[in-house]
């Protein structure tokens, strides 16, 4: 069978990325220009600043990717790109670059939903088995996705307010930790104990999430301690927040695993890099669901990258999904 090579571009948030992937799982080149240092300076991702950096990086990142793969655009079979969701100004740059390449080289143009990229990042580890349950956790998303087959996505649970990664960043700000809060909280939590009691978020649908209350709970706990002249241990607060957030997260996963017969469970998205979450998944899956296969993606595929967009784009390509040149970026878009 002929190899299928996909070049992909991802620019939905604060990484300008390009990758070339063979047959959906063999990475020939994978380049990411991260803006994290700049956004740390700004205390978060500022959309206009992100867009400005994307246009600075876009052509050089494509050029370097081609160079690393030792290929020309003529040799690829399709151009995939993240259409959304994400920051509209950031998305524009990647979408336009992809459209320009597809037009100039007469290649099929393949639109990809960012979250499907996170899901298919797991294809770099091993073959996906269906039906499958994916927990997609990131700065913008907290979703349970059921897949009966390749490229069939059904959201069965989602956050009603903040995404889990957003909650980490907000709590990080409350605790005066530098942006991004997630990795810092994860690290500090290891040095603390979950001694502060924070209420588990309550929602009606057992598969839905809610994290906005947790930030207020952390603030209230801190104020209470201060009122009583007690010192606040940042490490213990991180440990308490993380434990509560992950306990709530896992409750929903179990509810989903108990109600749908799936063959595989996969973790996806930026928050999949959280060390405690990775341990939790491993422990719970092996103990409680030994018959369900599971994948925890390597750290390098958790954060935004274009290889995952190429992996998803490969399946989309085979399914005949194509975009015309009038396609636009979409800040919000359903799976």
């Amino acid at each position, binding site marked *: 069978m002929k190899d299928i090579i996909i070049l992909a571009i991802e620019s939905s948030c604060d990484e300008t990325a390009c990758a070339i992937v063979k047959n959906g799982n063999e990475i020939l080149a994978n380049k990411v220009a991260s803006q994290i240092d700049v956004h740390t300076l700004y205390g978060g991702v500022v959309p206009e*600043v992100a867009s400005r950096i994307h*246009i600075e990086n876009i052509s050089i990142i*494509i050029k370097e990717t081609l160079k690393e793969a030792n290929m020309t655009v003529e040799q690829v079979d399709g151009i995939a790109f993240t259409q959304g969701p994400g920051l509209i100004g950031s998305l524009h740059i990647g979408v336009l670059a992809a459209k320009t390449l597809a037009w100039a080289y007469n290649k099929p143009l393949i639109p990809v939903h960012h979250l499907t990229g996170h899901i298919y990042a797991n294809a770099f580890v091993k073959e996906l088995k269906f039906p499958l349950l994916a927990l997609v956790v990131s700065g913008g998303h907290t979703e349970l996705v059921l897949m009966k087959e390749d490229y069939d996505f059904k959201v069965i649970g989602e956050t009603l307010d903040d995404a889990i990664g957003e909650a980490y960043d907000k709590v990080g700000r409350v605790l005066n930790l530098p942006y991004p809060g997630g990795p810092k909280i994860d690290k500090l939590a290891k040095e603390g104990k979950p001694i502060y009691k924070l209420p588990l978020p309550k929602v009606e649908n057992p598969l839905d999430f809610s994290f906005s209350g947790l930030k207020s709970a952390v603030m209230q706990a801190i104020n209470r301690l201060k009122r009583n002249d007690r010192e606040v241990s940042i490490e213990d607060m991180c440990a308490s927040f993380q434990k509560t957030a992950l306990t709530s997260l896992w409750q929903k996963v179990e509810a989903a695993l108990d109600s749908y017969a799936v063959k595989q469970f996969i973790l996806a998205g930026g928050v999949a890099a959280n060390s405690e979450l990775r341990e939790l998944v491993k422990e719970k899956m092996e103990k409680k669901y030994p018959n369900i296969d599971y994948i925890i993606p390597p750290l390098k595929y958790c954060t935004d990258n274009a290889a995952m967009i190429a992996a998803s784009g490969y399946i989309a390509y085979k399914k005949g999904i194509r975009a015309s040149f009038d396609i*636009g970026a979409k800040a919000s878009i359903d799976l």
Partner: protein
Amino acid sequence: MYTIGIDTSHQFLLLVLMDENRIIDYKQNQCPKLQSEYIIVELDNLLKRNNISLIEVKNIVVTIGPGSYTGVRIGLTVAKVLGSIVGKTVYTLSTLQLYAGIKNALVLMDARADRCYVGRYNNGVALSEDSVLTNDEIKELLCDDVALIGDLHLFGKESYYPEIAKNFFLLKDKWKKVSNIDILTPVYLKSSQEYLRK
């Protein structure tokens, strides 16, 4: 050999097809916010209806601002990919310079928040650097000696955007050749420092 002029930095999607001696064809759409959707479609149409293939296009000349941030980035992204990856030679013009053409003109372009981008040009040459001024400051500058061009509705006059397609060609000897396309960035005239969290 052909050249394509691209301006998306204000409310138009303007694509101009030229050769050494003349404008062959152009397309000017008023589609603020939709430039990103239509730019490739219109580029494709422009070349096809003139039976020209992209291979025969040697140069791209693009406006690099000041103007709408998103708008400027649209034309520039296309130009950067065509320059860096496809291998076209890229030239730039200031957006205000394009709007002035070869006239003796004061060009005003809405920069929001009661400010305008201001360009003072004569015969394609900048008489002062492009800048951003408050509309109150600009009122002091308005006089009858120069042609006023751009978003004049902000000053109680009728807005005026003269034949900018033609200007691409008229300013041919003012096109600035880009030596390293990968580091080309828009001219914003407003620093990203403004976005720092207060």
